[in-house]
């Protein structure tokens, strides 16, 4: 049972991380993963690059807290949260979340929960470059709503 938290400028290898959570771990029956990538359009403008700023120290703590919260709600074996910072371009990977569990229900839900909480609680900020110059991305109400729906839910381990 481990939570891997990494904040890095380098790219990540999703296949290698999935293998690491599966090989030698016969209790694992399900691996759910999510990869967020850089889009070339946002709010109707073309995006040529994206700079990700974060709050060193707080970022890692916030991500670790989210993984612990996921463990308290679902039957989770291992988790991975890797988030990139610095300059990224369309099609680049931004974030990877993996949850392993005995069964898919726990893995799917915990993975989605971690992403929803990350979007509203982890101190990252995006600044994107469009044909009109650079601009800071504004937080979306839909992200707050996505995180809030988990507050209404009792711990949701599925048999």
């Amino acid at each position, binding site marked *: 049972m481990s939570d891997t938290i990494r904040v890095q400028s380098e790219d990540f290898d999703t296949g290698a991380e999935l293998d690491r959570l599966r090989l030698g771990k016969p209790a694992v029956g399900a691996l759910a993963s999510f990869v*967020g990538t850089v889009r070339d359009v946002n709010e109707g403008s073309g995006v040529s690059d994206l700079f*990700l*700023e*974060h*709050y060193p*120290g*707080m970022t890692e*703590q*916030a991500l670790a807290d989210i993984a612990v919260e996921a463990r308290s709600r679902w039957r989770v074996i291992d988790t991975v949260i890797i*988030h990139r910072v610095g300059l990224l371009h369309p099609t680049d990977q*931004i*974030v990877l979340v993996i949850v392993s569990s005995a069964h898919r229900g726990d893995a799917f839900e915990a993975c989605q929960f971690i*992403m929803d909480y*990350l*979007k*509203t*609680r*982890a*101190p*990252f*900020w*995006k*600044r994107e470059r469009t044909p009109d110059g650079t601009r*800071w*991305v*504004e*937080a979306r109400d839909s992200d707050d709503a996505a995180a809030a729906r988990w507050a209404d839910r009792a711990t949701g381990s599925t048999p």
Partner: protein
Amino acid sequence: MRVQLRYFASLREALGVEVEAIDLPEAVATADALRDWLAARGGVWAEQLAPGRPVRVALAQRMAQPGTVLSEGQEVAFFPPVTGG
């Protein structure tokens, strides 16, 4: 009370300050009191930290509520709502 202040992202750019160490009067004891105190600097501070603006506060690198009490030597960060992922 002395605290270390940090600003991030669009707020840092608008204020033109990344870090500062300040001595607070005794009356400034909570996160929202500190925000009001900084807004009283006027100009861009008043504009950026005005009530109703979406500004988040972290104390000792944890998300804080408006009423969270400050401690001596603490790191206090102000920033806009987060947009990672």
